[in-house]
C-alpha cells in the first residue's frame, strides 16, 4: 500500500466511511493559528424530488475526480483567508443516513471559514465528475440535475 502524504490525505475520494473526529483532528493539528473551523457534512437522505429513496450509489471518474477536488482545495487556500482545507467524497454504495461528503476549513476567524466552506461544496457540485444513482420504488434513477 502506498504511503499517503499528509497533503494527500486532505483530498480523497474513497469507498469506505470516514471518521469526522479523525478528519477534524487532521485539520486542527495543521496549524496552531487556527481559531475557527467550519464543516459541511453531506449525508444520504431517503427522499428526493418527491420520491422515496432506499439507497444510492456514487460513481466517479477515477483520476479526474481527485484532480478536481485538489484544485478546489488549492483555490480555496488561495482565494480565502484560511489556513487549511479538507475535501472528501465517498463513492460506491451508500445507505440512508451514511456520510457522503465532508468539507472542513480551518481559519484564524469564522467568517472566512464559513465562506470558504460554502464555496468548496458549491464548487464541488459544479466541477467534480461524480454521479449518483438513487434506488427508488419506481426503479433506479441517475440523478441528472443537482442544485
Amino acid at each position, binding site marked *: 500500500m502506498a504511503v499517503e502524504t499528509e497533503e494527500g490525505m486532505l483530498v480523497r475520494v474513497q469507498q469506505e466511511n470516514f471518521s469526522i473526529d479523525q478528519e477534524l483532528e487532521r485539520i486542527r493539528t495543521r496549524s496552531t493559528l487556527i481559531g475557527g473551523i467550519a464543516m459541511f457534512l*453531506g449525508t444520504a*437522505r431517503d427522499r428526493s424530488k418527491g420520491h422515496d429513496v432506499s439507497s444510492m450509489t456514487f*460513481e466517479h471518474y477515477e483520476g*479526474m475526480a481527485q484532480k478536481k477536488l485538489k484544485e478546489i482545495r488549492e483555490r480555496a487556500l488561495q482565494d480565502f483567508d484560511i489556513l487549511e482545507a479538507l475535501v472528501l467524497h465517498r463513492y460506491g454504495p451508500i445507505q440512508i443516513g451514511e456520510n457522503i461528503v465532508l468539507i472542513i476549513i480551518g481559519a484564524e476567524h469564522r467568517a472566512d471559514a464559513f465562506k470558504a466552506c460554502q464555496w468548496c461544496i458549491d464548487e464541488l457540485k459544479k*466541477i*467534480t465528475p461524480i*454521479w449518483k444513482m438513487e434506488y427508488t420504488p419506481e426503479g433506479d434513477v*441517475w*440523478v*441528472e440535475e443537482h442544485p
Partner: protein
Amino acid sequence: MVHVRLFGMLKTLVAGANSFELSLPEGSQVKDLVDSVQVQYPDLGELLLQKKVVVSVNQEIAHWETALVESDEIALLPPFAGGA
C-alpha cells in the same frame, strides 16, 4: 481509432457499455467526434449538441476545437451530481 469512456446515465444510451471505439481521421477535433457520435448514437449525440453532456480530454473539459490524438483519454460526462 479513439477510445471513449462513458459515465453515469450515458451508459444506458449505449446498451450498458462503459465505453466505445470511434474511428476518426488524423487531425480530428472534438467537434468531429461529436459529429461521429451523432451518427452512431443519435441520443447521445443530441445530448452533446445541447451541451448537456460535455467531453473531457485527458481529464480536462474540452472545447469543440480541442485537437484529438489516438492516445488521448476521452470521456463523455453527463451533468455532475456529487455532494449530498
